[in-house]
């Protein structure tokens, strides 16, 4: 019985932390509790969540994707550069760009048998160059009328709720369904928990891995599109500050980097924690620059807490 409570506590610890943080900030500044403020905070978190959501799948397999920030920047460039020419078709083109980049990371990692962190790091180099190429090394503005007609789904309000939240919620549901209800989702968990067992049961592990990496690139691509829609421009360095918070969001949410344990809603909660911590630090007068120091250490601490050490004999 006690064990059950302990397990429940572990599952909902991130949620408890989030609620405590919100109460703490609300205690200092009651206007924080205003519905409009809470909604705008959540809306601001959605691009981070979109980015983290795909990587969650990769981390659950025990791998990592260090290319998402480069991919999001690149797709923002693709979108901004091709929106005037191809209209609405620039969006699927940008998503495709993300998917191809994700596929490349997965392909290099699995087929050439290179550890995923170095494979995706290498791919991110190529992706960054591609971003510069698409944007002609500049930041590209998206004209207001094009933005209104093609990217309206990502900005503004529907039923009083910012559309970023709707977009985030849709992908939260889709990815959770993929992870919880499909054989693919089960295999992702299985690979993270015990890769050799999945291999021995005759599953093409590489194919599942490549699919997960592709999904990760795709989500990063979508995050880049939403970012470009919000800012009204695309740039080859648009998302370069997002890698640390995205990975922090995932591990703070309770997904272990050793794989096997995790879910998409955890990354959702983790992204909100990251955002709320950031707001809290701004309240306390910690400079934006210094916040990165704190996040660096939060990342290491969260990894240390969530990691399952029984799974790795030697920590490299």
């Amino acid at each position, binding site marked *: 019985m006690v064990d059950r409570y302990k397990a429940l506590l572990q599952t909902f610890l991130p949620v408890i932390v989030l609620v405590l943080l919100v109460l703490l900030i609300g205690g200092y500044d009651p206007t924080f509790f205003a519905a409009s403020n809470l909604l705008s905070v959540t809306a601001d978190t959605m691009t981070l969540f979109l980015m983290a959501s795909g990587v969650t799948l990769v981390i659950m*397999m*025990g*791998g*990592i994707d260090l290319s998402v920030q480069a991919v999001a920047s690149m797709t923002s460039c693709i979108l901004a550069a091709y929106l005037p020419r191809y209209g609405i078709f620039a969006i699927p083109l940008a998503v495709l760009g993300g998917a191809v980049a994700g596929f490349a990371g997965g392909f*290099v*990692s*699995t087929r*050439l*048998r*290179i*550890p*995923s*962190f*170095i*494979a995706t*790091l*290498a*791919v*991110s*180099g*190529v*992706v*960054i*160059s*591609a971003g*510069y*190429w698409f944007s002609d*090394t500049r930041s590209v503005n998206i004209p207001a009328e094009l933005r209104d007609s093609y990217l309206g789904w990502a900005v503004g309000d529907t039923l009083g709720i910012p559309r970023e939240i709707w977009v985030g919620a849709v992908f939260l549901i889709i990815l959770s369904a993929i992870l919880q209800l499909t054989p693919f989702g089960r295999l992702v968990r299985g690979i993270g928990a015990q*890769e*050799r067992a999945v291999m021995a049961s005759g599953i093409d592990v590489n194919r599942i891995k490549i699919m997960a990496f592709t999904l990760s690139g795709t989500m990063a691509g979508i995050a880049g599109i939403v970012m470009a829609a919000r800012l009204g421009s695309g740039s*080859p360095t648009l998302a370069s500050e997002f890698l*640390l918070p995205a*990975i922090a969001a995932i591990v703070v949410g309770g997904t272990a*980097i050793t*794989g096997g344990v995790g879910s998409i809603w955890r990354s959702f909660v983790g992204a909100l924690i990251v955002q709320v911590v950031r707001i809290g630090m701004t309240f306390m007068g910690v*400079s934006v*620059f*210094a*916040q*990165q*120091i*704190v*996040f*660096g*250490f939060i*990342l*290491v*601490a969260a*990894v*240390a807490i969530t*990691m399952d*050490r029984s799974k*790795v*004999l*030697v*920590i*490299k």
Partner: protein
Amino acid sequence: MDPGLRRDDGLMGDHDLIGRNRLKTAALNGGALAQWRKWAPLAVLLALCILISLFNGNFLTIGNFIRLLNSAAIPLVLCMGATFIILMGSIDLSVEGIVALTAVMVSLLVTNDISPYAIGLFAVPLAVIAGGVMGLLNGLLHVKLKTPSFMTTLGVGFAGVGIAMAVLGGDTVRISDQTFRFLSLGRPLGIPMAVWIAIASVAIAFIIQERTRLGRWLYAIGTDEMTARHAGIPIERTRILIFTVAGLFYGLGGVLSAAQFGQGHALISQGRLFTTITAVVVGGTALSGGVGSVLNSVIGVMIVVVLANGLVLMGVEPYVQQGVQGLLIIAAVALALDRSRLEVVK
């Protein structure tokens, strides 16, 4: 069936078999394949030089050669640290963070337009030690919290850039201390001071690697950590020490960066991590640990620098460099990794 064809088939089969056997025993008796692997980076470097000089007559001039050495200086210093860590089978993603931090620190300590310290060359050992402290932090967190090195160093690296940004608030410090800038710009015997410092770094790293217990232990850990542990090697202490030594080299790299550009800012190290890891793996040091040497990294740095120089001479846009380096990492790792040891690749 044509008998000739069948004989050919048989021959090809034999070749294949010999090749495979060599692959298996290469690590044990240093067969032809191991020999080839050992010399491949040097062959690539020579081929690259010949190819570029065919396309462009300006490549093989003394002026260009000195320019090459000069741009190789900082990557060389950084690679000395990174090679040690990769030889242990770990990885260090904090290169940019530590370089940024130490570059900003040293530029605030010498004569500059923001802070009043102006302690001149005394700033150099302080900044190098600061790099060592960051490396020590890497090692302590990695070993004591038992977190994988890539995650630990990612976090510490971000923190390093964060500190550099927080100290300067995003500004740039301009250095006006000419004695300090001599560290990069001075030219004893016609060769830039930075190159002399890089050569000294390589010599020190080589001595650590070949002539100290630390160097021997780090090969043992990289080859097989469990066995090394059973043999009584103090794994934890060695790991922490190696991360600290690497931090010292990055600190020196930061000092040289500040001296070269005459300024310090948080983004001074952008792209350094990429170049460093590319150079180490292109030089033939295996990411799986235990195989390679700091001398390999010297070749690796020269390959990266010559390629970059060649691309510039051929008029390729500078932003393509990072993409080319990315492809180089993939190619080099794919060719060099001894995958027979790895069943599960994470």
